[in-house]
């Protein structure tokens, strides 16, 4: 037993850790939290910022400084994490960063949620010490979802690494060297002309304001003030499990019934739920699966609700276009039905209706602009706000979300089942679809939970016997995982009938629009909240959602009917540049 552990002392406290443990983790184990800027447990270690240095004693009694994030603990080591020299070194490093960084906290979107700012406070930095040249690189506002501000970049490299190692998109690179080094797309192309899928994972990793939301808060504020159009809004499943964090609540707090109250106070007249769109997506995509089972393919049927994934597929794997479910995403389903069904019922022109979608996702901003998501030149969804922007909008209107009274979403497009909310968790979209598909194939056999699809695994696989068919299932999140599975399917190594792909690690609860920080632990807690929300719902199967039944009986007819095809389905095409 003991042999597997090594002993060292950190700040004179004995610590036992497994070999290969870093000094950073060993210190954390005894409650010493060393500051870091470039280290992230999900990414490879590069030891670039040197902020995490600690003092290590040499055999001859002298000392040296080593970066704790990358230095392995060794038996007998004597480590001190907070000596005068260590604090001085960290202070100098912070001051050096500031010397090459805009002095602009007051007007900065990261004000109050910036790691550099917090460090300055922790190390009582009270002046700008070094004055000198600053690297000046123009900002990149080419995309509809995220903007890059290289002047603020501290070159921690986390954006490059998450894009390369987790998403395997490789849209960002280190360019130049020395004092001029900067992270940007290869050839200094605008981000909009690259394979970037706008997932926003780089933004989540960025410790400063070098990658930002393209914010639509001002635009929505203006529309709310004008009150000219019929104001409608939809809220994605994952929002209810994460927005509380932006109001000081612990991760995993559910604020489902506070959100409609807040939206009404903002002036929205009709509060819809993307969960309802998810229920509709289950109906359509579930029937696509049934059709393919009857027709014998093509398999796998691949989900299409994650726009980051759709864009990735179009850049990197267009050969899978025939496999893609043609069902629109829940956001676009609610948008379309708002501008058609709802507008018709209210007797107003679609142009009179304005719709905001509150999303955990930056790629949703791209999705609403796709030509197939407009009708007669009018977009089905007019603006997307990320979870963070939604919280900003609420604060701007003096709304303290957690202390609001409860209320409900509006009928019809606001009524949802537990299956709908499951779209917020990775594997949840597939689970929701299977609930309905199983009960159609085996009427009366209410199968509600599919343990193989639960939990945080990046690639979850299993098979399901339904009727006399064995369905091979696979659900992945994070596009690096998607690549592995797609490549295995292409090579014939793997057979899958139904494949769920969510672009972001952790699915939508880990989307690029979610509160900062979004760590693995926080993602897991949001997932648990989604599961709890599902279990608390009286109706947990999409086809039993009365609103869904009503829409089909009074408007669409059957799933996959001609009208359903016209309104709720979409198409894909290979996208330039072709990714490798």
């Amino acid at each position: 037993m003991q042999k597997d552990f090594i002993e060292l002392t950190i700040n004179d406290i004995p610590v036992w850790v497994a070999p290969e443990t870093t000094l950073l983790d060993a210190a954390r184990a005894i409650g010493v939290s060393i500051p870091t800027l470039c280290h992230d447990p999900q990414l490879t270690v590069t030891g670039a910022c040197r902020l995490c240095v600690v003092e290590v004693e040499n055999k001859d009694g002298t000392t040296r400084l080593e970066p704790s994030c990358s230095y392995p603990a060794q038996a007998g080591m004597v480590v001190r994490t907070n000596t005068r020299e260590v604090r001085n070194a960290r202070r100098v490093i912070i001051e050096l960063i500031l010397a090459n960084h805009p002095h602009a906290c007051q007007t900065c979107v990261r004000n109050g949620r910036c790691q550099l700012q917090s460090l300055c406070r922790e190390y009582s930095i009270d002046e700008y010490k070094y004055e000198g040249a600053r690297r000046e690189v123009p900002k990149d506002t080419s995309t509809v979802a995220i903007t890059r501000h290289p002047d603020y970049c501290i070159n921690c490299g986390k954006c490059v690494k998450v894009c390369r190692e987790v998403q395997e998109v490789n849209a960002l690179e280190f360019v130049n060297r020395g004092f001029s080094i900067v992270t940007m797309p290869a050839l200094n192309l605008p981000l909009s002309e690259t394979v970037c899928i706008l997932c926003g994972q780089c933004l989540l990793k960025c410790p400063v304001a070098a990658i930002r939301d393209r914010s639509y808060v001002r635009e929505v504020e203006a529309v709310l003030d004008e009150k000219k159009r019929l104001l409608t809004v939809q809220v994605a499943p994952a929002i209810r499990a994460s927005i509380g964090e932006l109001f000081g609540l612990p991760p995993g707090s559910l604020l489902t019934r506070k959100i409609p109250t807040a939206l009404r106070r903002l002036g929205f007249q009709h509060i819809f739920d993307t969960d309802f769109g998810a229920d509709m997506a289950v109906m359509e995509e579930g029937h696509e699966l049934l059709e393919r089972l009857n027709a014998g393919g093509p398999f796998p049927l691949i989900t299409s609700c994650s726009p980051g994934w759709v864009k990735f597929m179009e850049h990197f794997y267009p050969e899978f276009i025939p496999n893609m479910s043609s069902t629109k995403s829940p956001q676009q389903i609610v948008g379309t039905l708002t501008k058609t069904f709802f507008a018709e019922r209210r007797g107003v022109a679609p142009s009179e209706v304005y719709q905001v979608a509150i999303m955990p996702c930056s790629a949703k901003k791209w999705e609403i602009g796709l030509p197939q998501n407009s009708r007669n030149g009018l977009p089905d969804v007019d603006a997307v706000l990320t979870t963070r922007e939604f919280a900003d909008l609420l604060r701007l209107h003096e709304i303290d979300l957690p202390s609001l009274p409860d209320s409900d979403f509006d009928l019809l497009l606001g009524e949802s089942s537990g299956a709908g909310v499951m779209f917020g968790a990775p594997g949840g979209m597939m689970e929701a679809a299977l609930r309905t598909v199983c009960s159609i194939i085996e009427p009366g056999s209410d199968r509600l939970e599919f343990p193989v699809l639960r939990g945080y695994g990046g690639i979850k696989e299993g098979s399901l016997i339904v009727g006399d068919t064995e369905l091979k299932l696979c659900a992945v999140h994070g596009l690096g995982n998607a690549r592995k599975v797609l490549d295995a399917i292409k090579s014939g190594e793997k057979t899958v009938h139904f494949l769920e792909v969510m672009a972001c690690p952790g699915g939508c609860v880990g989307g690029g629009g979610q509160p900062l920080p979004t760590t693995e632990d926080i993602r897991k807690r949001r997932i648990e909240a989604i599961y709890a929300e599902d279990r608390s719902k009286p109706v947990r199967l999409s086809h039993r959602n009365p609103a869904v039944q009503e829409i089909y009986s009074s408007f669409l007819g059957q799933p996959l009917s001609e009208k359903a095809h016209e309104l709720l389905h979409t198409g894909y095409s290979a996208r330039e540049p072709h990714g490798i």
Partner: protein
Amino acid sequence: MKGVEWFRSVGTEKCPGTKVFSLTGKVKSTGLIEVPLGLPLSELIDHIGGGAPEGIRVKSVQAGGPSGGCIPLERFDTPIDYDSLKALGSIMGSGGLVVTDENTCMVAFARFFLAFTQHESCGKCIPCREGTKRMLEILDRITQGQGHLEDLDELRNLASVIQRTSACGLGQSAPNPVLSTLRFFEKEYLAHIQDKCCPSGVCKSLLTFHILDTCRSCGLCARNCPVSCISGEKGKVYLIDQDRCIKCGQCYRVCPFGAVAKN
């Protein structure tokens, strides 16, 4: 050819063998030389290099290339081996030995080497990428006569953080020239900062050229001035327009009567 045993029989106990150096600067014979480790610096410079050319007083030797350190004349008894060089804040490094004389400004000299390593930084880690830039800017200010006394402590502090925290040898050794000149030639730094004067007459911003009363108004300086900023007429002392002077030193060199002074 002669085997390990023979090789180890030369040099010192801790640092056996020989080492090739590139001897340059103010010595009579420059070039590549191979010497046993442990040889005193003076031996190498005076015997092999033949000492300084006539009329030149050696001041120091920069050992180890751009990342090395400067060793003053008083320490030329130092044996050349890894530990002795390290103790003086220098390194064996590339084996470069640059001998300097009274006409070398040690601040400008350190700045020159730091500019090289700063330019070579790969940019990965903050202390090297950002720190060498700020050190260089401080040295720039000092050589331009805009230094402050506190700059010296700041240089020392930055240098030690860069040495101790940089990720690779480039950053770890980049501050050596600055630290070693600060250690052995602090006076020169102080002259730049307090007296606004470069004792070796190298730092142009701190230089002025004046024409003394001994001027015989021959006009040679005016004809040689590349920016034509010297004016005068027969029988009067010529005058340099200080605002336009680029401190090239041409007038100083050509005046046949030694009537141009620099300070």
